[in-house]
């Protein structure tokens, strides 16, 4: 997030798109509710009538995959009506002319035809967002342009044009100067407790800790030297989907999987199973015997987050301290100490002599001290500094108070980069054989592959089984009844689940959550529509058909 979570409550206008905030990030939805109750406008752009739609002042129900046209048309209208922040554009942004050219053809009327959102709604949304207009009440930011913020999540990024969409949202913010100030910005809501931190400290194939590219000779060698080495591998590695392809092709022979469950969470699970079975060696380090562990050669028992210390970095870049609440069961150990042990063994087998500290750490605080030495954005992070409110990176030195709001006065890269955006439809379009669009995601009561939440009494009681949301018109046509069984079929596989008939999804769309091993949504999803830059699969859109099984007579 460019801005902090607490800033949302003072925003004058909130644009949420591709985020089911109330179910996937409920506590952020509380901030949104507070803002709306005190007079902020809430513009929600989503094919699915998610719970926050009830609180939206403007709900734009775009057909799946067509939101890009809505955003382009909003920019078109902002330019046509002279609502852009010309001072901001002149002083802080580059690439405006190219961007202006790309939106010229995207009139609200044209977008309305494709997206199904009436042109007037697109125009109103554009005016409200650009001006930071409130529905009622007074702005915390005085006279002049109010402050608008954009919140988005996987509905934007799990798309074949994910990076284009994110760039487009950034374009909208720069066009209207709605960034670099309190309660504004472009704010991705990240889905896991430490997904931000896992990226920050180098859990990515192309980045060393602190987003230093592995191909950057200078930065790579600096990290290598900090570790007492001459150099490190310089070729970017494989992303998760590429790994599965490499394994299936026999190029990848061994995998170490820690705290992940790819045999539930990756796209096209039949292919993932084939890939994992093809490995010579698979080690799974986890807290439960999950789906992936079924194919492991070795399983290492890990401590859960409630049983260990260390730090996690939340979606607003805040590094926070974890403390153990209960003891880990049996011989389960914290991940970091297992990894240090494996590292030591590998060195011993190679007869490598290293400095003692290379793998040996007295505590997680020690590990953080080393992270700080190689990670510029964490340079000033120390455990003892995190006891009160944590620290928001970048924290360039040991006395720096942290940076809750990014891009104030100047962008990290100097000038903000506006880029033209090309609209494009999803990779797999519905056709006669697979006429419906399937979208996958989370429900309020469960989390990812359900390993933890399905073992929680209250959560499992409230949402005990898989279901698919289907529009009442489609259900009537297919003969599916509410609560009755349906089978969803894609080119990859099929899943049997229970129909939840209603108006939450538009006609032509089905929603299925991916928490259920009895009905794994990712048997249906595909891995060929990866975003070319982010390599994220298009979980939000694939083509399916729905069948109603014949009732048994026994």
């Amino acid at each position, binding site marked *: 997030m460019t801005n902090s979570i607490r800033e949302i409550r003072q925003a004058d206008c909130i644009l949420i798109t591709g985020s089911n905030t109330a179910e996937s990030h409920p506590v952020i939805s509380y901030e949104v509710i507070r803002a709306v109750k005190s007079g902020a406008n809430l513009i929600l752009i989503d094919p699915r009538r998610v719970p926050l739609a009830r609180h939206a002042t403007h709900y734009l129900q775009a057909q799946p995959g067509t939101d890009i046209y809505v955003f382009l048309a909003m920019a078109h209208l902002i330019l046509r009506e002279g609502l852009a922040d010309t001072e901001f554009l002149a002083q802080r942004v580059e690439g405006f002319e190219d961007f202006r050219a790309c939106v010229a053809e995207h009139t609200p009327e044209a977008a309305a035809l494709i997206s199904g959102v009436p042109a007037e709604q697109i125009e109103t949304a554009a005016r409200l967002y650009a001006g930071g207009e409130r529905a009622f009440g007074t702005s915390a930011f005085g006279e002049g342009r109010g402050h608008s913020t954009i919140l988005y999540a996987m509905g934007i990024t799990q798309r074949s044009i994910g990076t284009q969409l994110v760039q487009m949202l950034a374009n909208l913010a720069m066009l209207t100067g709605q960034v670099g100030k309190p309660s504004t910005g472009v704010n991705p*809501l990240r889905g896991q407790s430490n997904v931000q931190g896992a990226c920050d400290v180098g859990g990515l194939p192309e980045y060393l800790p602190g987003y230093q590219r592995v191909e950057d000779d200078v930065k790579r060698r600096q990290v290598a030297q900090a570790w007492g080495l001459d150099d490190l591998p310089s070729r970017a590695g494989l992303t998760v989907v590429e790994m599965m392809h490499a394994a299936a092709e026999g190029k990848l022979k061994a995998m170490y999987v*820690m705290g992940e469950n790819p045999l539930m969470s990756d796209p096209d699970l039949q292919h993932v199973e084939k890939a994992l079975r093809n490995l010579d060696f698979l080690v799974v380090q986890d807290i439960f015997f999950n789906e992936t562990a079924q194919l492991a050669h070795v399983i290492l028992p890990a401590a859960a987050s409630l049983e260990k210390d260390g730090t996690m970095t939340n979606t607003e870049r805040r590094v*926070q301290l974890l403390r153990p609440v209960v003891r880990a069961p049996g011989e389960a150990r914290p991940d970091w100490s297992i990894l240090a*042990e494996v590292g030591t063994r590998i060195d011993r087998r190679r007869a490598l002599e290293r400095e003692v500290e290379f793998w040996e750490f007295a505590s997680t605080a020690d590990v953080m001290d080393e992270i700080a030495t190689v990670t510029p954005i964490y340079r000033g992070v120390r455990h003892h500094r995190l006891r009160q409110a944590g620290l928001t990176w970048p924290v360039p030195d040991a006395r720096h108070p942290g940076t809750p709001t990014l891009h104030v006065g100047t962008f990290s890269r100097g000038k903000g980069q506006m880029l033209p955006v090309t609209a494009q439809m999803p990779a797999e379009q519905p056709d006669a054989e697979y006429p419906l669009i399937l979208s996958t995601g989370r429900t309020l009561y469960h989390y990812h592959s359900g390993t933890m939440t399905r073992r929680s009494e209250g959560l499992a009681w409230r949402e005990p089984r898989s279901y698919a949301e289907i529009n009442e018109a489609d259900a009537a046509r297919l003969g599916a009844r509410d609560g009755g069984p349906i089978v969803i079929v894609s080119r990859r596989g099929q899943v049997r689940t229970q129909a939840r008939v209603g108006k939450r999804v538009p006609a032509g769309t089905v929603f299925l959550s991916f928490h259920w091993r009895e009905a794994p949504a990712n*048997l249906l999803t595909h891995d060929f529509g990866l975003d070319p830059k982010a390599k994220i699969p298009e979980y939000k859109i694939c083509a399916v058909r729905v069948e109603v099984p014949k009732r048994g007579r026994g």
Partner: protein
Amino acid sequence: MISLTLDGRAIQVQPGTNVLQAALSNGIHIPHLCHHPDLRPSGGCRLCMVEIGGRPNPAAACGLLAEEGMAVTTQSERLTEMRREIIDLFVSDHPLRCVTCDKNGVCALQRYAYDYGISETSFDFELSRTLYQDDNPMFVRDHQYCILCGRCTRVCDEIVGANAIEISGRGFVSHVATPFDWAMSDSTCVFCGNCVQVCPVAALMPRGRIGMGREWELEHVRTICGYCGVGCGIDYAAKDGKILYAQGFPEAVVNGEFLCVKGRFGWDFVGNPERLTRPLVRRDLAHRLGLIDDPFSLPEESVFTSRIGVENFVPVDWETAVDIVAGQLLGTVEAHGPDAVAGLTSARCTNEDNYLFQKLMRVGIGTNNIDHCARL
């Protein structure tokens, strides 16, 4: 800024601050039951009555905006008498069964009854509400303790936006209810439990806490939630190594006192008997390494139609397990090169875990094949 005096002390507050907030933020405690700093003032309990210089009648501090030059008195004989009367009325239909009550020690009504010396009511005691609703595994609604402060209904409306509960009925029979007194699960409730959090008495209690220990016997640990990326601070109350309940806390920088259903009620997986407690090696590898005699081969049927059980693995000690992992990974590197190995690190593990994982892959193995579910 606005200047006023509280009990003769000069203080300054932002315009729009009410007198109760002004007092509380300056360390002056005015009793209050219906007020909550994150909720709109309701003025319902009347405990926060104060005297204002130049005005004949006391007024509720929560509904009184601070004004320039205002002279406020928060403690006086008249106010004490009024507050005693109010507490006396509260306990005329609130059982003072503090000895067996799970809220004992953290109950706001108990605190004020103590402060104002009310050990029993001087009115005829009569329970107005007796409903006991135990309709879900997460929290219990015990209406006999309810004082109708309305914090629960306001949090449900103003913060959560679920609007599952409202005060229903009038007079003595009024009570907090879902529409038509439906079960919680038939209402729009999202089970976030923020109503339980703000309840000042024992009317709303976490299910797993009831009868499990007195408040001062519990150990409290503050940590960060392990679910989504919001990073809420959670205070866990545990006894004898077992978690009894989870709650938010005002100092939590992201979420304050508010949590969602997963954060507040979704922690009980930790004690699940299915937890992995020992390193395991699959039987075919164990046989190959000479750890067991019987051969084994992995069933070929898809795991999605025929689940492979944990019984196909044999427990080993950590020494053996780590040695096998190091040996197998290195063997792969020697036979096929470092890029034949890949690792998936975890968005649910700590920075320290992830950092060491990528260091292991980059230095120990020698590959950049590291990713995690940031994309998924």
